[in-house]
């Protein structure tokens, strides 16, 4: 189902930040903000809570740690003990590098999978884009315009046109 979005484009993240502040002051409900790169300090202004992705990272990392360490412990002490360089079978220092590697591997792959799942991204998914340039050099402040009357729509349009350094204002159905 199509959704109407009214959005303004800015050329600089400072201008976008000022517009976000102004929208917050005016009590407008910001639908979303799009930027070509992460803008420091934007999250708190939008009232976004801290990402929980790193918790997933920690859990997957720990799984990697345990998999590597317990795996090697079992292999080298129970399943197929081999003497390497005259060291004990259970040579913890020798296990550390691989434990580290698997921790990083599990954490990174796990976080990618969680991120894609939560965002609904994946093969075959189409993602409507408001304006191609928001992946390049434009900063977008978007409001939900679904089912708004013309006068309500004008309120948003006037607000966007009233912000400093506004470049363009568009209404788009996605």
């Amino acid at each position, binding site marked *: 189902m199509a959704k109407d979005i009214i959005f303004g484009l800015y050329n600089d993240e400072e201008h976008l930040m000022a517009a976000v502040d102004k929208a917050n002051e005016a009590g407008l409900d910001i639908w979303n903000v799009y930027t070509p790169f992460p803008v*420091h*300090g934007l999250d708190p202004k939008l009232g976004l809570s*801290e990402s929980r992705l*790193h918790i997933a990272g*920690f859990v997957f990392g720990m799984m990697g740690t345990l998999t590597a360490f317990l795996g090697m412990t079992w292999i080298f002490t129970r399943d197929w*003990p081999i*003497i390497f*360089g*005259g*060291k*004990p*079978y*259970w040579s913890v*220092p*020798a296990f*550390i*590098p691989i434990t580290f590697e698997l921790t990083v591997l599990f954490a990174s792959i796990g976080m990618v999978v969680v991120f894609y799942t939560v965002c609904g991204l994946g093969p075959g998914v189409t993602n409507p884009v408001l304006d191609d340039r928001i992946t390049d050099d434009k900063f977008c402040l978007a409001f939900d315009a679904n089912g708004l009357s013309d006068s309500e729509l004008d309120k948003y349009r006037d607000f966007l046109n009233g912000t400093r350094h506004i470049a363009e204002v568009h209404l788009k159905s996605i």
Partner: protein
Amino acid sequence: MNNNFTFTGSQRTLTFALMAIGLLALLFGVFTSPEGTHQARVWSNILHNTAFFMGIAFISTFLIACKISAYSGWHTNFKRILEAFSMFLPIGLLLVLIIVAGLWTGSHHLYHWAADGITDPNSANYDSIIDGKSKLLNPIMYTVGTLGIIGLWTFFAFKFRSLSVSEDKDDHGVGKHEGSSYWRSSKVWAAIFLPVGGFLSPFVILWLIMSIDSHWYSTMFFWYTSASWLVTAVAFTILFIIYLKSLGHLQQVSDEHLHDLGKYLFGFSVFWTYLWFSQFMLIWYANVGEETIYFHTRTRQFPVLFYGNLIMNFALPFLILVANSTKRMYGIMTFMAVLLIFGHWIDFFQMIKPGVYEGLHHHSHDHGDGHGSIIDLDGKPVNVSKYQKDGEPVLVQNDHGHDHKDGKTHNHDHDHGDGKAHNHDHGDGHHHAGDGHDHEGKDAHGHDHGAHDAHGKDKGHDHGHGEHAAHGHDDGHHGGGHGDHGAGGFEMGYHLPGFIEIGMFLGFLGLFLYVVFTALSRASLIPVNDTYHDESTHHHV
């Protein structure tokens, strides 16, 4: 906003009180020192704290130079704290001068390479390995090197400081895009200092700390020591920011700065661990006796220090600082900073004290029979020389044809003649029971050096191979005796810091705080004319 720090009477009282505690501890240490130790405990404390605090001052200078070279701006609002730390360098120079004076007057015997006749082939003390290193390890090189390099660093520290402070008083050039002339000048000095500081610091570390274990050498040691200084300097910076903010200063330093310093603390702690582990694993894996002995001594005789070091400086900061939120909490950051300062002080303690302890026991038993002591059992390299008067290299020194690659060779050597059951018919590769190797109840001990936990008591030793450690790895339960085998056993001030160590640490801390407070009070806390002042004020994580 209060931009000027005043060194108040109560802060003065505090620093002087700390220094008084330090002095009392020092005097107590001097008067309770056992005979014949050449005040080793007090001298090693002086060396320990000198290396620790001088290093903080050096690494702060290095951080300043890094940040100038990297055009870094975020730290500008607290850069006066780093500059104040760097002002401890001249005091560090004086402290090193005391150690140098002690070396020349023979007041301390911290450095085995400085012993009489150590490079004289005709002397009973002759040590061919130290002789081979004597171009670097001799009193003249030590003196010129340490004082010269630290003096050079001091010059740079003052240069950065004066350029930075001059910028405050004169706003000529401020607002220009390319920055003030002072800043441009400091960029040049910083670019010169980075290689000077980076390439010369290993020598200072080598002379001050690593040469205590005269036979031992590790190329990772310098990085590792520098990382320890780095973590400590960041921890002190955090403490000072929190303290100054509590006094109403540094209002422009926000949670964002603290968060980034928390990342430094976390990142450099992991970096330190990486270096610690790399050094350990390379030596553990290669199992070359002269290198392994360093860790053998520490894991067997100083386990609390050795493992406590890892828990304090890796496990705790890793688990506590890994979360985003903890780096913005003042209470947790204060706790972590204090923990890591103490932790890295312990790290330096375990770099210095075991070597001093061994040197002490070496000297004391040198005049005895030289057998059966802990030192012999550990195959301590200095003892190697006792059985090596012909000056041949250690690795081929034994005459049995078995090519032991490590220090334990020597254990076999001086077992001869003591009537024990194990004459090693090396070369024929025969197996013989490990039980035959009891020296004074310290079973199996002469054999498993270098291969931690590879106790071969029940397994028999195949001396036809070069690798002893191959034996008995499936946790043979060795009888008692090794581990913390005897010879003095636990000794306060070497195995753990005692009251004298803590007291002297507080004394040096008082001196450090005095210098830092003085430096802070002499310039405005916020460098408002700095090119990056604005960027720092609006810093976001």
